[in-house]
């Protein structure tokens, strides 16, 4: 062996080995963290012995006085009336849609660039954008479910929601400054072998909350269940039409 040759070849071998290591590691990592598919119909998780319970989390945020007053004022003007949001066919909005939604089922349809979360109650739909579908949230008008983007951390889906509207009618009131982080992943299956979906949620609201509100929501899969549509506003419209027909002394044939 000539002097000086071995060191050069050694460096080359080391470099090649390193590149191979990186490639193999990335392949293994990709395999271990294959992205799960959350598609399917889901209902509220019922732990053993809790069959039949339709409940959201018992956790409650700690509120500043301004929030307490706003929620109290809302109750004052609506208590005993039919003017709640739901009775006007208005959806729950985040985080109520995700944490409760009246105990109704939800369906997830998962695409690579977007998740559709359809809460049966009020046909409430969240669109959660990923990758190239993500736009600047600041360019969208605030809504009750906000604007949601997501990215994967291994097999966990991290969802970030902003552009929320102030909500006093929710079980979880918040100001328009609120942001919500959800982390979705598969938990341990039920004793019956049903899939369990978990979401750890943190709502931050510097204006209304004393501290970030953290809670965890679980669902279990619904096998052989058709998530239904939820027609809500038509009856109210028909009632209005009925009054107009009556005033005009005409027969209304549409039901």
């Amino acid at each position, binding site marked *: 062996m000539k002097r000086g040759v071995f060191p050069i070849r050694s460096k080359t071998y080391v470099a090649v080995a390193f590149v191979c290591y990186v490639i193999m590691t990335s392949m293994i990592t990709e395999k271990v963290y294959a992205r799960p598919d959350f598609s399917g119909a889901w209902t509220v998780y019922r732990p053993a012995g809790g069959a039949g319970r339709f409940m959201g989390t018992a956790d409650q945020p700690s509120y500043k006085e301004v929030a307490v007053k706003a929620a109290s004022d809302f109750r004052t003007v609506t208590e005993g009336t039919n003017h709640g949001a739901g009775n006007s066919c208005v959806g729950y909005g985040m985080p*109520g849609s995700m944490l409760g939604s*009246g105990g109704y089922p939800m369906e997830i349809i998962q695409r690579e660039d977007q998740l559709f979360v359809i809460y049966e109650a009020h046909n409430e739909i969240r669109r959660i954008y990923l990758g190239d579908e993500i736009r600047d949230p600041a360019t969208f008008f605030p809504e009750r479910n906000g604007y949601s983007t997501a990215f994967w951390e291994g097999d966990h889906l991290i969802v970030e929601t902003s552009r929320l509207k102030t909500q006093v009618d929710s079980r979880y009131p918040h100001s328009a400054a609120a942001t919500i982080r959800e982390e979705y992943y598969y938990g341990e299956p039920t004793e019956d072998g049903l899939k369990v979906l978990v979401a750890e949620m943190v709502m931050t609201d510097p204006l209304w909350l004393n501290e970030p509100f953290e809670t965890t929501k679980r669902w279990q899969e619904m096998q052989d269940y058709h998530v239904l549509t939820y027609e809500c506003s038509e009856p109210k419209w028909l009632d209005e039409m009925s009054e107009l027909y009556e005033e005009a002394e005409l027969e209304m044939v549409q039901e």
Partner: protein
Amino acid sequence: MKFIMHPLLTLSLLGASVSASTGYAHHSAAQFDFMNTVLIEGKVATVRFANPHMHLVLEVADSKGTRDITFEGHSRNNMRRQGLLPDMFTVGDSVTIRIAPMRNGEDGGYVTALRTPQGEEIGRVTAAD
């Protein structure tokens, strides 16, 4: 009107046993007494299975006389999930409903279950959805 007062446990019209809140109700349900249950028989005057709540008017005859009483109840979706199908009954049919009565004792209440003329049963015992 035929009022049959029963302890909650004896009222297993459907065998359903959900007793928890269904989350934030669509509107305040404070006027309904969900710790109490009443069965009412009557003739269907108007029925609309809708969301967020069903609307039902029964012609009821009792010691107070014969009159129409208006009820509301679970959503069409929840009733459907509990077995409701189109055309199970219609105006003029006699049905039995299970309600959470009004706290103030007035006529009306929140329908949690219903038995058709054919004996088919729909519903579950819960708070307002």
